[in-house]
């Protein structure tokens, strides 16, 4: 498995951290990238040994994150993340925490990149135009019950089978005529004075306008709230000319 160019560049920059002299990334004993100044055979032996050490700890049911060893010629930091193993060799012992943090950040980046490459769930493909089925036409059901029908059911039934429901249709027509008559008999309301009209305006419930399924409710203004939030226009200053004496 090869590293991407981004991860290679990150690993190269890790080589420049502090007094780091060698970086090696391996996965299950296989070297992915080696920036140690050692021979490949020696590095392979080092990676195998490191993998064995961490697998020994895993066999003992111990979750080891980091192993730091100080030698006479430098310090070795071994970072484990699952099957990944990152070996970092640096010179100054005080840098161990900093180097380990940088290495852990690289391992997190590696996980992130591999996670996005391997574990992405594919988006479902859109069907072709000829595969798209036309939606079935929804036919309103005809009322078949014996009880009294609602107004809506009666309207639907009258539209579908006008011959069977002629009596109901005539009754509806009579009811419509009667309601029109009542509406004509109602006298128009007297004009109210301004104060009572404003009170009525305030106490009247706000109408809700229904568009489809969305209820649009108009904003309610306070009594002293101005219609516009813009500042009032400035009055031009009138300067009185001084009379020169």
């Amino acid at each position, binding site marked *: 498995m090869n590293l991407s160019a981004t991860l290679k560049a990150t690993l190269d920059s890790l080589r420049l951290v502090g007094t780091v002299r060698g970086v090696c990334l391996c996965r299950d004993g296989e070297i992915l990238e080696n920036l140690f100044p050692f021979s490949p055979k020696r590095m392979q032996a080092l990676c195998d040994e490191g993998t064995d050490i961490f697998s020994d700890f895993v066999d003992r049911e111990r979750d080891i994150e980091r*192993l730091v060893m100080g030698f006479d010629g430098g310090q070795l930091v071994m970072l484990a993340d699952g099957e990944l193993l990152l070996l970092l060799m640096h010179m100054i012992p005080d840098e161990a925490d900093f180097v380990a943090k940088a290495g852990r950040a690289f391992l997190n980046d590696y996980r992130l990149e591999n996670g996005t490459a391997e574990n992405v769930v594919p988006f479902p493909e859109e069907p072709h135009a000829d595969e798209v089925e036309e939606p079935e036409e929804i036919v309103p059901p005809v009322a078949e019950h014996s009880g009294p029908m609602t107004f809506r059911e009666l309207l639907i039934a009258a539209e579908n089978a006008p011959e069977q429901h002629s009596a109901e249709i005539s009754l509806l027509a009579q009811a419509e005529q009667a309601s029109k008559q009542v509406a004509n008999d109602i006298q128009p309301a007297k004009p109210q004075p301004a104060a009572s009209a404003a009170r009525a305006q305030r106490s009247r419930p706000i109408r809700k306008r229904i568009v489809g399924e969305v209820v649009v409710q108009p904003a309610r203004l306070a009594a002293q709230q101005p219609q516009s939030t813009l500042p009032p226009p400035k009055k031009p200053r009138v300067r009185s000319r001084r009379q020169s004496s």
Partner: protein
Amino acid sequence: MSNSPDNESASVDLPSFLNEDELLDLALTTQGARYFRVGNGGSRGCTGAGDLEAFSENLGLLQDCSIRMGNLLEMEAVSHCVVYEKDSTIAYRYDSDSNPRNPMVVGAMVNRQVPIRKLLTDLAEL
């Protein structure tokens, strides 16, 4: 990863009038370091035989690991080794004040993650 602040020391002054079990409980409660000294065919610790036995087992493991890696790196002189688990840190280092022909090892176990620099400084001052 590391859940401890960098400027916090691992050493906690344990009172001397407590017995071993009480010292162990206090060290576990306060997340302080339990120190050990190994050499001359013996080992010492102030938190009881069970804790000392656990440290000896870890010391053997860490010495084995560091010697194996040191042989491959051709750096056989191991000065210290620190291992970080999820919630604990175990470390040892050679006592530089001891006789080189018969070196002593000082070690510590802390039930939290401690920065290496602080831990090694505390071990050197022990």
